[in-house]
């Protein structure tokens, strides 16, 4: 798994590539905690290169939602493929976070919530 964080105004774009599973998810969790401690409350996850997502990864996404909401912010996802979408859907996550089609839409929806 690879994580790349890029600032975009008040927002942080978090690109996650590869597998987000029981082995790799603690790394993303540390990143989320770090960003939250820095005061970031708008997170956009770029997931077009995410190949696999298990409940360990869902746990971290939920953590991101909880932390940003507690600070009055939000989480958006974009670039979500069918495989990943199936997991989000079964787990009831599509109602917890914004799933946007493009980076622009994701950033726009986050900006409106700010």
């Amino acid at each position, binding site marked *: 798994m690879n994580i790349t964080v890029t600032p975009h105004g008040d927002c942080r774009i978090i690109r996650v590539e590869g597998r987000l599973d*029981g082995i790799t998810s603690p790394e993303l969790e540390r990143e989320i905690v770090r960003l939250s401690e820095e005061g970031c409350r708008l997170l956009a996850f770029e997931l077009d290169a995410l190949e696999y997502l*298990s*409940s360990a990864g869902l746990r971290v996404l939920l*953590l991101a*939602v909880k932390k940003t909401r507690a600070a009055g912010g939000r989480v958006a996802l974009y670039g979500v493929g069918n*495989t990943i979408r199936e997991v989000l859907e*079964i787990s009831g996550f599509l*109602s917890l976070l914004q799933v946007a089609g493009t980076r622009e839409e994701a950033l726009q929806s986050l900006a409106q919530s700010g």
Partner: protein
Amino acid sequence: MRASSIELKPELDELRRLERFIRRFCDRNGVTETVRNRTQLICEEWFVNVVKHGFGGGGEEAAGAPVPPRITVRLGMTRRGELTVRLADNGPPFNPDDLPEPDLALPAEQRPIGGLGIHLIRRLASRHRYERTDDRNVLTLFVTEGGQTNGGNQEGEEPT
């Protein structure tokens, strides 16, 4: 039925070996990406659960009876082209059907962190069956390309 199996140690790092095992089996049997991905998820969620709750925490509960852990995954293909998964472990009895469905309507603030693994297993398999035999948990699942289902715990034949 073509079949292949692997034995795993109760350590999280074994996930990588499990992943490669599943990939190799699926490549060899022409399994689609959707079915392979569902199989990977089912096996990971089950394995992590077994490691954490079955043998995890190391030995307080197991102190009385030091049985060496045995965790096996067996994959097969039926003649109808369904992928079958047989997950067996000799941890304490654990029937996934005894777990209540998670409340997916809860807002984020009230959502418990975790607890989705078994839910995923039940939903990603087209059907499954649990047995406790010879002091082992044996979970048999069928994974198909077909529409996602309510993951019913039905043992019957498919409609003809």
